[in-house]
């Protein structure tokens, strides 16, 4: 059954959507005011989440809602606070976390973590390091099986997302879904997860055996939050789901084009074929533009519109040398990065560098001392 949404609930632009385990309260963050709100589904009350004294809306980095919807955890980047809908605020549960909030269990245990480890803490206690794992590419980390296992998404570069179950007793990873991201395990025994097409799929899932059934599309056109790519969707333990449905879009990414824009907003189009154009870089003399189209590296001469393909494909990034005579192309394979150097008018690669991993590179003239 679909419930009406009060007009003051501006979920259309909401992000970081969460529903309490009992389905009574929805919490969400809404730009442009950068304010976190709660919405009581039973009373229809909508109000800003009270923040601890001295904490501003823009300080809130992440939050969690308690199982009964009466309290919230607020991570300001320097501390995790507990605050109640009635305005009462605790002392910080943990100071200096600067870490992601994962989960707030029914017994009051809070799970949080950084790139290298996960921690759990009970208010008034000392944090316990509970997970030693390389979390650098992990997103949407959710404890399941009463904290005996972790559900997360591996978002390694070049990957479309792999949903993985980590058994904490054996430290064994099991890949459940690929591609997919932002998985939730529901009390109904279903695993739901998102796809880049905005479709949400569900499959029967047994968290004890890690057996997973055939996925079925159960929701269409769910909004994908732009900053972190999460689904704007939340579900409680009893079968209430709150989400934002976005009008289906054309595959506009296939129709991207390069342009040079002046300060008045008027574009001077560069003559390239439309396509799935990703990043691009213009040489400092303005003569050439390197760009990715459909995953392949291209260079266009701005004056003539003449293009040529470099003959490499992958997760590519481009940087021009200060004198505009060479182009450095980085290719991230997920395992490492190769940087090759090219002349703007074509020809074979001049030289190459093999590096462990580079997410972005730039070229300077300074001597290496």
């Amino acid at each position, binding site marked *: 059954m679909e419930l009406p949404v009060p007009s003051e609930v501006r979920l259309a632009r909401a992000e970081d959507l969460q529903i309490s385990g009992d389905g009574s309260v929805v919490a969400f963050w809404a730009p442009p005011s950068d304010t976190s709100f709660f919405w009581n589904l039973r009373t229809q009350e909508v109000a800003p989440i009270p923040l601890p004294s001295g904490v501003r809306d823009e300080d809130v980095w992440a939050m969690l809602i308690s199982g009964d919807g009466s309290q919230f955890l607020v991570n300001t980047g320097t501390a995790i606070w507990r605050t109640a809908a009635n305005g009462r605020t605790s002392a910080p549960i943990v100071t200096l976390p600067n870490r992601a909030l994962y989960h707030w269990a029914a017994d009051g245990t809070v799970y949080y973590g950084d790139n290298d480890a996960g921690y759990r803490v009970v208010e008034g206690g000392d944090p316990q390091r509970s997970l030693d794992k390389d979390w650098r590419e992990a997103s949407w980390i959710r404890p399941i099986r009463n904290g005996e296992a972790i559900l997360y998404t591996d978002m390694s570069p070049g990957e479309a997302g792999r949903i993985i179950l980590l058994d904490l007793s054996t430290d064994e990873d099991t890949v459940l879904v690929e591609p997919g991201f932002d998985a939730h395990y529901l009390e109904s025994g279903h695993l739901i997860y998102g796809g880049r097409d905005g479709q949400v799929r569900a499959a029967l899932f047994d968290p004890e055996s890690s057996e997973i059934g055939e996925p079925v599309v159960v929701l269409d056109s769910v909004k994908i939050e732009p900053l972190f790519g999460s689904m704007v969707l939340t579900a409680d333990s009893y079968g209430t789901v709150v989400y934002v449905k976005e009008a289906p879009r054309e595959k506009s990414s296939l129709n991207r084009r390069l*342009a040079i824009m002046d300060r008045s907003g008027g574009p001077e189009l560069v003559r390239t074929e439309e396509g799935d154009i990703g990043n691009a870089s213009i040489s400092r003399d303005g003569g050439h533009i390197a760009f990715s189209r459909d995953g392949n590296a291209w260079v266009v001469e701005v004056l003539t519109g003449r293009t040529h393909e470099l003959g490499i494909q992958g997760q590519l990034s481009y940087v021009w040398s200060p004198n505009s005579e060479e182009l450095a192309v980085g290719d991230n394979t997920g395992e490492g990065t190769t940087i090759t*150097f090219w002349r703007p008018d074509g020809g074979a690669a001049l030289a190459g560098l093999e590096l462990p991993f580079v997410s972005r590179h730039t070229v300077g*003239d300074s001597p290496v001392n």
Partner: protein
Amino acid sequence: MGGGRDQTRDSRNDSDLWRVPTDGGAPTPFLEAVWSEGQGDISPDGRWVVFHDDELGHNEVFIRSYPTPGPKIAVSNGLGGGPEGSPDGTEITYGLGDSIGAASWEPETQTVSDRRPLTHKTTESGRITWHEPATGGRLLVVLEPVPDEEEATDPPEARVITNWFEELKRLVGN
């Protein structure tokens, strides 16, 4: 050129900025803090690097001297990421939510001024998905079509569905 070109890179471990000589040699760290630094861009004169870091819990844009890092000079003010320096080294552009922000940079006095939103990412010509400063104060952009007018007036809708588990069981089984 000096003793060899060098590149800054983000290491996988902590998203730090590293330097590597392009004519051979081992990479060495340039900025290696416990927080993440990224998107380094060396100025045309090779004396400055603009980058973002998340020391404050969110990305902000800074500039530091190069190759010996001096004090951090704030470029953005409240939020900013993905900085790029202009070809003449006097302007820095960066992502600023739904806009592209810009700030003027005076290297001699080491002063950042005139912080301002440059353009909204959604323009009459399309939505900007990538940008980089070009010569003459222009911007190189990648544009994608915006939804047509009818689609644009059809805002996202919030949905609240109860008893969804029954629907899941019907569609997926139990």
